[in-house]
């Protein structure tokens, strides 16, 4: 357990630092998928293998690909020095982040969580489905949340299409015009 934990923790944290500090945006995206894979490994360790599968499918697959498409559409080739990718808040930002991290880590470690033991999670996909629908002893609010999330996803997809659509007569299609 300890070997797996140390491996996954170092993978996750080093990849997270890579997202922040790498000079190429594409490298940032690839580091981000590495961090997501580390979190998926944590989910497997935490008795949630179905959630780990969701994580790999949605984050490592879909979100990384969408972000790579976004990079493809929005980046010009540019000189990538540290001065150009960071804004002027690098040291105040580091101070604030260290403050937040140290505060959270301190509070979460001194808090008495009572009797904790691993293995209370729901391993079965059937149990996860019952929790998601709010039946079978799960909090019944989950049924409402499930419906709200589906509406939210629909609205978000429509909004994404509407926001990113080119208005008629605005801009040129480079592949056609030039």
């Amino acid at each position: 357990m300890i070997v797996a934990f140390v491996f996954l923790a170092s993978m996750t944290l080093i990849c997270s630092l890579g997202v922040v500090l790498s000079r190429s945006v594409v490298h940032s995206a690839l580091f981000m998928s590495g961090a997501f894979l580390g979190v998926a490994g944590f989910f497997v360790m935490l008795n949630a293998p179905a959630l780990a599968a969701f994580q790999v499918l949605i984050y490592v697959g879909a979100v990384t690909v969408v972000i790579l498409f976004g990079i493809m559409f929005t980046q010009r080739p540019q000189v990538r020095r540290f001065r150009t990718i960071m804004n002027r808040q690098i040291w105040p930002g580091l101070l604030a982040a260290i403050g937040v991290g140290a505060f959270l880590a301190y509070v979460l470690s001194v808090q008495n969580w009572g009797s904790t033991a691993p293995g209370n999670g729901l391993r079965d996909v059937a149990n996860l489905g019952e929790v998601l629908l709010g039946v079978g002893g799960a909090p019944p609010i989950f049924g409402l949340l499930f419906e709200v999330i589906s509406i939210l996803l629909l609205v978000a997809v429509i909004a994404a299409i509407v926001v990113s659509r080119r208005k008629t007569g605005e801009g040129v299609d480079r592949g056609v015009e030039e």
Partner: protein
Amino acid sequence: MPPQAQEFLSQLNAAIPLEGYLVVGAIMFAIGAWGALIRRNAVVVFMCIELMINAVNLSLVAFADYLPDAGGAGVGYAVLVIAVAAAEVAVGLAIALAVYRSRKTVNVDEVNLMKG
């Protein structure tokens, strides 16, 4: 097998305390917050926000597995959070695309259209 080696092996197999996962989540959240504060590129800011969301998910699932009264509800919340994050990244990248189309840049300190 000598007893020291056996003890070492049992130590290696011991369960990780809950605080281990929580501290990893907290550090990951702090790294994501740092990146969201200092990076100029809007797409990288989105990536850092995704990192923060993942750190919170990790904490939720750790609680669901370790607290006996949680009943595994944290995994359900994590699924909902993943759905909200997917919606956020879709809308966010659409906005980044629209901004790039009109301003030819996605650097967050050059886009000052709504500055008073």
